[in-house]
């Protein structure tokens, strides 16, 4: 697990063979994550003046705002950029590709959900268990981008 600092670019994060890299955000006892390659900028809350998608609130997670941990991730794969609010600690996490699984969205009744995949992470320590990652679909985030309301860095 590696920390990244606000203002840094995560897009340069590269995945080793067999690994996928995510920016993971702690939220209310759960951890959601977005593909690191889709994150263009990580800003402090105060550096963003526009609207932002609040993934944790969309998920109904209980958030305890912590001083100094409010960030905005600017995410996008194509022409669209969407700002995503991150309330908790942000980490860069490598996950083995084999541990990332698509969710059976049709059975769960969530065909248009933000969650596209989950990662069950293995710990090298026998007794330790790492919390799973709820992986947010960048395309679904882009669909949530408020039209004509591009934010700006202040």
């Amino acid at each position, binding site marked *: 697990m590696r920390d990244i600092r606000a203002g840094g670019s995560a897009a340069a994060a590269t995945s080793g063979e067999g690994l996928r890299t995510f920016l993971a955000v702690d939220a209310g006892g759960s951890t959601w994550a977005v593909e690191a390659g889709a994150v263009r900028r990580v800003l402090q809350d105060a550096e963003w003046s526009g609207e932002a998608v609040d993934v944790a609130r969309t998920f*109904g997670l209980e958030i305890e705002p912590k001083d100094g941990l409010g960030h905005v991730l600017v995410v996008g794969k194509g022409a669209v950029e969407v700002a995503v609010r991150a309330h908790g600690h942000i980490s860069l996490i490598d996950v083995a590709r084999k541990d990332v*699984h698509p969710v*059976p969205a049709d059975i*769960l*009744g969530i065909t248009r*959900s933000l*969650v596209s*995949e*989950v990662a*069950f992470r293995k710990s090298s320590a026998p007794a330790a268990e790492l919390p799973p990652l709820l992986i947010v679909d960048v395309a679904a985030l882009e669909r949530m981008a408020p039209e004509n309301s591009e934010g700006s860095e202040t």
Partner: protein
Amino acid sequence: MQLQVEGVWFAVDASSVQEILGRKNWIAVPGAARATPGVVEWRGRAVAVLDVAALGSGGSALSPSAPRRRVVVTQVGRNVLAMPVDDVREICEVPEERVRPHHATNHPFAPTEVEIEDGKPLPLLDLSLATQAGAGGGRTES
């Protein structure tokens, strides 16, 4: 095969059962249906969790912090479902005539019931119906 969830016994067609696991953690997926609230890892994939207690039998809904003692993995058509349960009994063979439309039992996802050895009928869960309940059912609160 007989299963118990929250004090209620059910039967399922044993031919659909792929594996019986011990207690296994699962992950809640936000926005998922109440009957299929999350996923569990099984044989290198994420399979849907089916909470039988949420299908109308009463009892407490499944919680990630309190996984049940056993997980019964079943194949329903192309779908795989993992059912956390409290207890599992051995497979028993039952003559066709002991499977009949429900009469003594009344469960929305068990249109038939089966009479096991002690003469007491158990609701025979229709897992296809249960799967549809997940796909079209009520949402979880999160």
